[in-house]
């Protein structure tokens, strides 16, 4: 296949990738985008495979088959597990970049040291540092999300943590510079694995201080890193398709990370180095206030009388797998002519858009999923706000309490609704370990229990009363 055809095919693939992302701007055209992506990827693979320099085919077939064998089950995970699947795929992306960078370095070192120009070495070092740190960092994130036993769930912090991390990174970067200046020195092939080791270690250390509530931002940042490592690979291999596709991925991760940070009123550096965990222990020791508990019957009666109900889902809904019960509740209320909307906070859940996917899975029309900024002006007119497993995103302390770690974070104004019902698994504080004033408000009534059971009971009670079953 002539180089002209290869380049033309790569340009075509690039255009299709851009269309794929463009079509994601509307749920009605989004599936078309997936098709465009699949076509582009197929073109890129076929054209590359057909290049004359590719002469061994056995391992390629084997690796592709293995990719299908592992990839298909990974695409069938329950939707509550999508955050850890996503983190895992960032890990794979980082690993691929790291390995190709490693392979290329040792190849050129033995079969053409003249190829190791300063520019190529910069690209290779960037590729391996980004690739390997994304690999272990994403594995750690996936482990935290999957609640793997030996991965600490709570943020792990220790004195001098940021200093250690920064120091480690500077050492890796310094060794990288030494290698860029002397890529073919006697010690170079031995230094290379040291840099890999440091990048792997740095990835782990970067993620251990991060708690579950910050996961949406961290996943987005890791997404960006995975994209950037693909860009670096493009520079190493002089392949513009890699550069463009990597840049699309990198900018996507960047935009999502910015949106997540804004939704928490925090900066990148604060999320990565802020160690959210330390502040909590100080504030969690406040005096004990009293919750008002409500029965299912009482809550059901109030909801029946409402004109407008807003349901505010959070990570607790995902944990309890309550989305299908929530749909039944939605149906029961709709049947009575009650307006039901869902208020979606950008950082609700463990990754960007997590709640939307879960509710769409439960067959709730996406037109009833409303963003925080859109629903907040309407909250004072809402009769009932039902909080399902959300905590920090409805905590009014974010507006008023200057000493609170979440001060300044935009929240859904649940407290401005006429009545609030909050479903909570236990009387312990939420993930961030902060007391939620909303629960002690005069108009708030608590429904203690597993979200799935509580909503199931509500549905049963409402269903029994209507006589339609």
């Amino acid at each position: 296949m002539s180089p002209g055809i290869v380049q033309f095919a790569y340009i075509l693939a690039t255009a299709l990738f851009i269309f794929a992302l463009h079509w994601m701007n509307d749920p009605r055209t989004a599936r078309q985008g997936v098709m465009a992506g699949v076509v582009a990827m197929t073109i890129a693979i076929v054209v590359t495979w057909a290049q004359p320099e590719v002469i061994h085919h056995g391992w390629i077939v084997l690796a592709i088959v293995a990719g299908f064998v592992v990839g298909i089950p990974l695409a069938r995970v329950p939707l509550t597990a999508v955050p850890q699947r996503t983190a895992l795929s960032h890990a794979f992306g980082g690993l691929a970049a790291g390995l190709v960078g490693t392979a290329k370095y040792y190849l050129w070192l033995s079969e053409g040291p003249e190829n190791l120009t300063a520019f190529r070495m910069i690209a290779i070092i960037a590729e391996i540092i980004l690739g390997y740190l994304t690999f272990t960092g994403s594995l750690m994130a996936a482990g935290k999300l999957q609640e793997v036993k030996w991965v600490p769930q709570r943020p792990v912090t220790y004195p001098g943590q940021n200093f250690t991390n920064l120091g480690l990174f500077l050492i890796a970067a310094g060794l990288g510079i030494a290698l860029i200046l002397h890529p073919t020195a006697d010690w170079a092939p031995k230094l290379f694995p040291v840099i890999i080791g440091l990048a792997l270690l740095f990835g782990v250390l970067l993620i251990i201080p991060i708690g579950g509530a910050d996961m949406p931002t961290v996943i987005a940042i890791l997404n960006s890193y995975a994209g950037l490592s693909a860009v670096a690979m493009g520079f190493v291999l002089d392949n513009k398709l890699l550069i463009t596709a990597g840049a699309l991925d990198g900018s996507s991760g960047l935009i999502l990370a910015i949106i997540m940070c804004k939704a928490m009123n925090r900066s990148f550096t604060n999320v990565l180095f802020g160690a959210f965990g330390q502040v909590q222990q100080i504030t969690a020791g406040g005096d004990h206030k009293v919750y008002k508990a409500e029965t299912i019957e009482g809550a059901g009666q109030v909801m029946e009388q409402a004109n407008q109900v807003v349901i505010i889902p959070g990570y607790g809904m995902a944990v309890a797998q309550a989305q299908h019960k929530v749909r039944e509740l939605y149906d029961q209320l709709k049947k009575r002519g009650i307006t039901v909307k869902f208020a979606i906070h950008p950082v609700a859940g463990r990754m960007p858009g997590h709640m939307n996917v879960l509710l769409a899975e439960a067959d709730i029309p996406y037109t009833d999923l409303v963003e925080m900024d859109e629903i907040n002006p309407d909250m004072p007119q809402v009769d009932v706000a039902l909080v399902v497993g959300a905590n920090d995103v409805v905590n009014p302390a974010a507006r008023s309490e200057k000493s609170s770690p979440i001060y300044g974070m935009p929240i859904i104004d649940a407290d401005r609704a006429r009545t609030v019902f909050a479903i909570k698994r236990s009387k312990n504080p939420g993930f961030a370990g902060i007391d939620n004033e909303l629960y002690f408000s005069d108009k708030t009534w608590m429904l203690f229990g597993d979200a799935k059971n509580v909503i199931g009971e509500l549905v049963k009670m409402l269903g029994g009363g209507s006589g339609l079953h």
Partner: protein
Amino acid sequence: MTPDAAPVQSTDFWSQLFVLVLATFIGLGVIRRVSRLLHTPLMSITNAISAIAVVGSIIVTGADYPPHIRLLGAIALFASMTNIVSGFLITDRMLKMFKTDRKPGAGEQK
């Protein structure tokens, strides 16, 4: 045919940088318009797209290189392929679920 296959002495740094800058701007412009509803599928489709690293992995695995180099390529190819397959499949699976309203008949239960 050979000039493309043979190792290139000097890479075209400036045109690569040019491509990177332009692609980043296109990316920022396109992604900013993506519906917030679809941020999770967006992440899984960009995962699949960035697995374009497959292109580099195929060359490293299939070219006439020493076996240990090709083995690294094969592992990278496996990792990329996993991302491509699972990324596109799960994106489509999620997108299928986004509907404006229920199909007639979906109201009847059990």
